[in-house]
């Protein structure tokens, strides 16, 4: 052990030689955890109360004094409008408070907000399905498939049935088939990028990525790379990929030949993490099982570290704008800012108590699909 390391040990020991006494740390943690649990309960109760009030003649609760939660804990509802639509397993709640029932669509996997409603992907006993749900709650079935991918702008849809891959163009409640190919068994679409459809292997074995260019004809296996392509870049021209078996590097790949454009390694990544770039392509949120990391895509290639990180269990995230995102964590809806104070704000949601609330992303027009 070198002398510098010894000096470090002494420095650290010196600094904590006298430690302040923390007054009832356990009690405060228990109380704080209790408040978190009560907020969840009260949020559900408020939703029911609000529904009763509207049914009884529109005497709303919103204009009254702050509600008193269970045990007298004050609960102040946010004065700001909710930044995104949200969903539970059974309803969509719009930003302006309307509730759209999803009871006819069990097992909702994904929802995308489009101009005239929502595109809802559901899981069925045999296959997945894509539906259009209108503003008036009218449900229109669009397509079934083993795997279904909707482009970030909501215009293009790719789906697989056995070894076949199809691409359709959506306009309102109709989906027109544009391209089809066979010979793509064991592949699933993950991104529209650079005029092609990026596919990854879903069979057992190393994950590989390939691209199908519909304009050149049927799919023919190209030079697959050992990587899990995960998301298109903001302009749809390239694709983010996690390259490596255990602790992968973050790569930006050119869909043509899948050549590497940029790379950052030494990052706390695993192959199954979810990547969600911001609309302007400056930021990248990475969802890990117990953590959400934020990367600045201007600097990650040299800094090789996240800009910020939150310990939170989140499954879904939606960008509100280029600086703000909303995620579901600890069963609540939380809002974060790329340049904010570093803490996540809780957003009150009156969505009932029938399950976790998830934010619904907006369709973005910047994505380039199949031209």
């Amino acid at each position, binding site marked *: 052990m*070198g*002398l*510098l*390391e*010894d*000096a*470090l*040990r*002494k*420095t*650290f*020991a*010196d*600094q*904590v030689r006298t*430690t*302040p006494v*923390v007054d009832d*740390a*356990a*009690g*405060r*943690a*228990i109380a*704080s*955890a209790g408040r*978190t*649990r009560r907020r969840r309960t009260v949020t559900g109760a408020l939703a029911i109360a609000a529904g009763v009030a509207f049914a009884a003649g529109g005497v709303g609760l919103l204009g009254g004094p702050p509600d008193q939660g269970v045990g007298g804990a004050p609960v102040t509802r946010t004065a700001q409008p909710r930044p995104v639509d949200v969903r539970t397993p059974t309803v969509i709640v719009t930003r302006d408070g309307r509730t759209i029932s999803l009871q006819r669509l069990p097992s909702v996997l994904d929802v995308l907000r489009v101009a005239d409603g929502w595109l809802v992907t559901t899981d069925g006993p045999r296959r997945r399905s894509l539906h259009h749900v209108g503003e008036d709650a009218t449900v229109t079935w669009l397509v079934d498939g083993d795997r279904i991918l909707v482009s970030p702008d909501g215009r293009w849809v790719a789906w697989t049935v056995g070894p076949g891959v199809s691409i359709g163009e959506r306009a309102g409640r109709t989906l027109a088939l544009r391209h089809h190919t066979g010979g793509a068994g064991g592949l699933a679409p993950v991104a529209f990028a650079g005029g092609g459809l990026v596919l990854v292997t879903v069979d057992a074995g190393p994950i590989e990525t390939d691209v199908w260019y519909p304009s050149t004809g049927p799919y023919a296996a190209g030079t697959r790379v050992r990587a899990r392509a995960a998301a298109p870049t903001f302009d749809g021209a390239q694709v983010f990929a996690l390259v490596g078996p*255990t*602790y992968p590097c973050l790569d930006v790949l050119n869909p043509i030949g899948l050549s590497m454009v940029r790379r950052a390694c*030494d*990052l*706390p990544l695993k192959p199954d993490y979810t990547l969600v770039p911001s609309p302007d392509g400056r930021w990248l949120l990475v969802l*890990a099982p*117990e*953590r959400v990391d934020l990367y600045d895509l201007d600097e990650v290639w040299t*800094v090789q*570290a*996240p*800009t*910020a*990180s*939150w*310990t939170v269990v989140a499954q879904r995230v939606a960008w509100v704008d280029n600086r703000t995102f909303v995620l579901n964590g*600890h069963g609540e809806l939380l809002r974060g800012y790329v340049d904010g104070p*570093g*803490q996540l704000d809780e957003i009150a949601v009156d969505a009932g108590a029938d399950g976790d609330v998830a934010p619904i992303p907006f369709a973005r027009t910047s994505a380039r699909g199949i031209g």
Partner: protein
Amino acid sequence: MAEFSVETEFRQFVAARSAALLRTAYLLVGDWAHAEDVLQTSLTKTYLAWRRLGEIEAVEGYARRVLVTTATSWWRRRWHGERPTAVMPERMAPDGADEHVERHAMWRHVHALPARQRAVLVLRFYEDLTEAETARILGVTVGTVKSQCARALAALRVRLAEDGVEAAGRRTVGPPAEPANAARPVERAEVAPPVAERSM
């Protein structure tokens, strides 16, 4: 009854481990008040996850992981490098002052490091964790821990040298310095040149 048991177990855990966790938090964030915030956040999350965690080893590991993640994430952007001090440490002082100044400089420079490099140093040289354990807590490879540690130590060496501090790192390349007032036998030939030279 079950909730009572969880509370009791949690209180016992906090009584046994909170002081140690607080010290680690302080070394990560450099400020006792903020260290307490980080500790409270970690304990709250640990309590919420208590039933899921099960064994006490898992609890300890979880609490530590949350602590380090919370500290490094909050403070990467909040830390603005060196903190101004009202009074500069005096260099002229009784015995032990040089060591004090060196440690003050060391502490200052540790906190100017990127948060994750700082975390690696704290986990390796304060918590005495292995490289593998450090990697597990930070969610990176052992190779990354090694490289971050090497970069951090190199940066400290450079910055301490720039301060003119007799850094431990500098001593590693040469023989140990003799104490200034050490008495040792001196041979005459070392202090007095030959007579022929003196006459020129």
